[in-house]
Protein backbone atom coordinates (compact mmCIF):
# COMPACT_ATOMS: atom_id res chain seq x y z
CA UNK A 1 0.00 0.00 0.00
CA UNK A 2 1.37 3.34 -0.98
CA UNK A 3 2.42 5.70 1.74
CA UNK A 4 -0.06 8.53 2.05
CA UNK A 5 2.79 10.81 3.11
CA UNK A 6 4.04 10.79 -0.44
CA UNK A 7 0.92 11.81 -2.24
CA UNK A 8 1.62 14.59 -4.74
CA UNK A 9 1.20 17.86 -2.91
CA UNK A 10 1.76 16.35 0.53
CA UNK A 11 4.16 18.01 2.93
CA UNK A 12 7.01 15.60 2.27
CA UNK A 13 6.45 15.77 -1.45
CA UNK A 14 6.60 19.56 -1.19
CA UNK A 15 9.80 19.40 0.84
CA UNK A 16 11.33 17.08 -1.71
CA UNK A 17 10.45 19.35 -4.59
CA UNK A 18 11.50 22.61 -2.96
CA UNK A 19 14.73 21.27 -1.47
CA UNK A 20 15.89 19.74 -4.71
CA UNK A 21 14.78 22.68 -6.81
CA UNK A 22 16.17 25.47 -4.64
CA UNK A 23 19.27 23.60 -3.56
CA UNK A 24 20.11 21.91 -0.29
CA UNK A 25 21.93 25.01 0.92
CA UNK A 26 18.52 26.69 1.01
CA UNK A 27 16.93 23.94 3.04
CA UNK A 28 15.43 26.30 5.61
CA UNK A 29 13.65 28.31 2.94
CA UNK A 30 12.64 25.14 1.15
CA UNK A 31 10.96 23.70 4.23
CA UNK A 32 9.20 26.97 4.97
CA UNK A 33 7.86 27.11 1.43
CA UNK A 34 6.86 23.46 1.58
CA UNK A 35 4.68 24.20 4.59
CA UNK A 36 2.66 26.76 2.71
CA UNK A 37 -0.82 25.83 1.66
CA UNK A 38 -0.48 25.23 -2.07
CA UNK A 39 -3.71 24.83 -3.93
CA UNK A 40 -2.32 22.08 -6.08
CA UNK A 41 0.99 20.48 -7.05
CA UNK A 42 0.72 22.29 -10.35
CA UNK A 43 0.53 25.65 -8.64
CA UNK A 44 3.49 24.74 -6.48
CA UNK A 45 5.49 23.60 -9.50
CA UNK A 46 4.60 26.78 -11.35
CA UNK A 47 5.93 28.80 -8.43
CA UNK A 48 9.16 26.81 -8.40
CA UNK A 49 9.55 27.36 -12.11
CA UNK A 50 8.93 31.07 -11.73
CA UNK A 51 11.67 31.54 -9.13
CA UNK A 52 14.25 29.11 -10.48
CA UNK A 53 13.59 29.38 -14.19
CA UNK A 54 13.74 25.60 -14.40
CA UNK A 55 11.39 22.68 -14.05
CA UNK A 56 10.95 21.39 -10.52
CA UNK A 57 13.49 18.85 -9.44
CA UNK A 58 13.08 16.01 -7.04
CA UNK A 59 11.16 12.79 -6.97
CA UNK A 60 8.56 12.36 -9.58
CA UNK A 61 5.09 11.09 -9.08
CA UNK A 62 6.09 7.71 -10.36
CA UNK A 63 7.57 7.15 -6.93
CA UNK A 64 4.09 7.20 -5.61
CA UNK A 65 1.71 4.52 -6.66
CA UNK A 66 -1.66 6.18 -6.83
CA UNK A 67 -4.43 4.30 -5.18
CA UNK A 68 -7.98 5.04 -4.33
CA UNK A 69 -8.29 5.46 -0.60
Amino acid at each position, binding site marked *: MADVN*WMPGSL*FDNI*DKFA*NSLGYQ*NSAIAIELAMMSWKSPDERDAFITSITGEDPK*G*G*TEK*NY*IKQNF
Partner: protein
Amino acid sequence: MGGQGSGGAHGGSQYNPANVSGTGGAGQSGNYTGFAYGQNSALNNSRIEGNAAVASVNAATPSTPVEPYQGINMPQLGTLFDKTTRPDEPITAGVDGNTPGPGSEVLPQGLMNNTRIDENAKIAAQYLPDLAMAAKSPDAPDSFKNFVNYLIQNSQSVVQNG
Protein backbone atom coordinates in the same frame (compact mmCIF):
# COMPACT_ATOMS: atom_id res chain seq x y z
CA MET B 1 -17.44 88.64 12.46
CA GLY B 2 -17.12 85.82 14.89
CA GLY B 3 -15.91 82.43 13.76
CA GLN B 4 -17.63 79.19 14.40
CA GLY B 5 -18.10 78.66 18.10
CA SER B 6 -17.73 82.30 18.97
CA GLY B 7 -20.50 84.52 20.09
CA GLY B 8 -23.36 85.43 17.88
CA ALA B 9 -23.33 88.34 15.51
CA HIS B 10 -23.13 91.77 17.08
CA GLY B 11 -22.31 90.27 20.42
CA GLY B 12 -25.52 88.33 20.62
CA SER B 13 -25.99 85.04 22.28
CA GLN B 14 -24.14 81.97 21.08
CA TYR B 15 -25.53 80.06 18.15
CA ASN B 16 -23.74 76.83 18.93
CA PRO B 17 -25.32 75.09 21.92
CA ALA B 18 -22.33 72.73 22.19
CA ASN B 19 -19.93 75.60 22.73
CA VAL B 20 -19.86 75.26 26.47
CA SER B 21 -16.72 75.35 28.54
CA GLY B 22 -16.12 72.18 30.49
CA THR B 23 -14.42 74.13 33.21
CA GLY B 24 -17.38 76.25 34.03
CA GLY B 25 -17.65 79.99 33.81
CA ALA B 26 -13.91 80.63 33.88
CA GLY B 27 -13.27 78.59 30.76
CA GLN B 28 -11.18 81.31 29.15
CA SER B 29 -8.68 81.31 31.96
CA GLY B 30 -8.70 77.57 32.35
CA ASN B 31 -9.44 77.78 36.04
CA TYR B 32 -12.04 75.43 37.39
CA THR B 33 -15.00 77.01 39.09
CA GLY B 34 -18.37 75.82 40.18
CA PHE B 35 -17.21 72.76 42.06
CA ALA B 36 -17.77 72.12 45.74
CA TYR B 37 -15.95 74.25 48.27
CA GLY B 38 -12.25 73.39 48.29
CA GLN B 39 -12.32 71.34 45.12
CA ASN B 40 -11.74 74.23 42.73
CA SER B 41 -8.26 74.98 44.04
CA ALA B 42 -7.37 71.31 44.19
CA LEU B 43 -8.44 70.79 40.58
CA ASN B 44 -6.59 73.90 39.48
CA ASN B 45 -3.43 72.74 41.23
CA SER B 46 -3.61 69.34 39.58
CA ARG B 47 -4.22 71.03 36.25
CA ILE B 48 -1.14 73.19 36.68
CA GLU B 49 0.96 70.18 37.66
CA GLY B 50 -0.34 68.23 34.70
CA ASN B 51 0.48 71.04 32.30
CA ALA B 52 3.98 71.27 33.73
CA ALA B 53 4.47 67.54 33.33
CA VAL B 54 3.32 67.64 29.72
CA ALA B 55 5.60 70.59 29.05
CA SER B 56 8.59 68.71 30.48
CA VAL B 57 7.81 65.64 28.39
CA ASN B 58 7.52 67.77 25.27
CA ALA B 59 10.82 69.46 26.07
CA ALA B 60 12.52 66.09 26.47
CA THR B 61 11.19 64.78 23.17
CA PRO B 62 13.78 65.42 20.49
CA SER B 63 12.34 67.31 17.63
CA THR B 64 13.31 66.47 14.09
CA PRO B 65 15.67 69.07 12.76
CA VAL B 66 14.67 70.73 9.58
CA GLU B 67 17.86 69.61 7.88
CA PRO B 68 19.22 66.55 9.65
CA TYR B 69 22.58 66.57 7.87
CA GLN B 70 23.14 70.28 8.16
CA GLY B 71 26.77 71.02 8.86
CA ILE B 72 28.04 67.66 7.61
CA ASN B 73 30.03 67.84 4.41
CA MET B 74 28.74 64.84 2.50
CA PRO B 75 30.01 64.28 -1.02
CA GLN B 76 27.26 64.41 -3.54
CA LEU B 77 26.09 60.98 -4.59
CA GLY B 78 26.78 60.18 -8.18
CA THR B 79 25.32 57.68 -10.56
CA LEU B 80 26.67 54.43 -11.93
CA PHE B 81 27.77 56.20 -15.07
CA ASP B 82 29.74 58.96 -13.40
CA LYS B 83 33.51 58.95 -13.54
CA THR B 84 35.09 57.08 -10.68
CA THR B 85 36.15 59.01 -7.63
CA ARG B 86 38.88 56.41 -7.01
CA PRO B 87 40.86 56.27 -10.24
CA ASP B 88 43.71 54.33 -8.63
CA GLU B 89 41.44 51.49 -7.53
CA PRO B 90 40.47 48.74 -9.99
CA ILE B 91 36.74 48.20 -10.36
CA THR B 92 37.22 44.58 -9.33
CA ALA B 93 38.78 45.48 -5.99
CA GLY B 94 37.24 43.30 -3.30
CA VAL B 95 36.43 40.45 -5.67
CA ASP B 96 38.20 37.16 -5.11
CA GLY B 97 39.78 35.36 -7.99
CA ASN B 98 42.18 36.23 -10.75
CA THR B 99 41.07 39.82 -11.01
CA PRO B 100 42.97 43.10 -10.70
CA GLY B 101 43.10 44.59 -7.25
CA PRO B 102 42.83 43.12 -3.79
CA GLY B 103 40.41 40.34 -2.88
CA SER B 104 37.57 40.15 -0.39
CA GLU B 105 39.99 40.55 2.51
CA VAL B 106 39.80 44.32 2.06
CA LEU B 107 36.03 44.38 2.45
CA PRO B 108 34.60 45.46 5.80
CA GLN B 109 34.20 42.44 8.02
CA GLY B 110 31.04 41.67 9.92
CA LEU B 111 28.71 43.87 7.94
CA MET B 112 26.97 40.97 6.29
CA ASN B 113 26.63 37.84 8.35
CA ASN B 114 25.58 34.75 6.50
CA THR B 115 22.79 33.46 8.68
CA ARG B 116 21.71 30.81 6.22
CA ILE B 117 23.92 28.16 7.81
CA ASP B 118 22.42 28.84 11.21
CA GLU B 119 18.91 28.78 9.82
CA ASN B 120 19.55 25.49 8.07
CA ALA B 121 20.98 23.94 11.20
CA LYS B 122 18.09 25.18 13.30
CA ILE B 123 15.42 23.91 10.98
CA ALA B 124 17.27 20.63 10.50
CA ALA B 125 17.36 20.09 14.24
CA GLN B 126 13.67 20.87 14.44
CA TYR B 127 12.37 18.70 11.62
CA LEU B 128 15.08 16.11 11.06
CA PRO B 129 13.44 13.35 13.16
CA ASP B 130 10.23 13.56 11.15
CA LEU B 131 12.08 13.89 7.87
CA ALA B 132 14.23 10.88 8.69
CA MET B 133 11.14 8.83 9.45
CA ALA B 134 9.62 9.85 6.14
CA ALA B 135 12.83 8.98 4.33
CA LYS B 136 12.55 5.42 5.60
CA SER B 137 9.31 4.96 3.73
CA PRO B 138 9.64 2.63 0.74
CA ASP B 139 7.83 5.27 -1.31
CA ALA B 140 10.32 8.00 -0.47
CA PRO B 141 12.14 9.13 -3.59
CA ASP B 142 15.90 9.02 -3.69
CA SER B 143 16.05 12.79 -4.03
CA PHE B 144 14.34 13.14 -0.67
CA LYS B 145 16.69 10.62 0.92
CA ASN B 146 19.64 12.56 -0.44
CA PHE B 147 18.24 15.72 1.07
CA VAL B 148 17.78 14.10 4.47
CA ASN B 149 21.31 12.73 4.31
CA TYR B 150 22.54 16.23 3.59
CA LEU B 151 20.69 17.57 6.63
CA ILE B 152 22.12 14.82 8.83
CA GLN B 153 25.67 15.52 7.66
CA ASN B 154 25.12 19.24 8.01
CA SER B 155 23.79 18.94 11.54
CA GLN B 156 26.72 16.71 12.53
CA SER B 157 29.25 19.14 11.12
CA VAL B 158 27.55 22.01 12.95
CA VAL B 159 27.74 20.06 16.21
CA GLN B 160 31.42 19.28 15.63
CA ASN B 161 32.24 22.86 14.76
CA GLY B 162 30.20 24.21 17.62
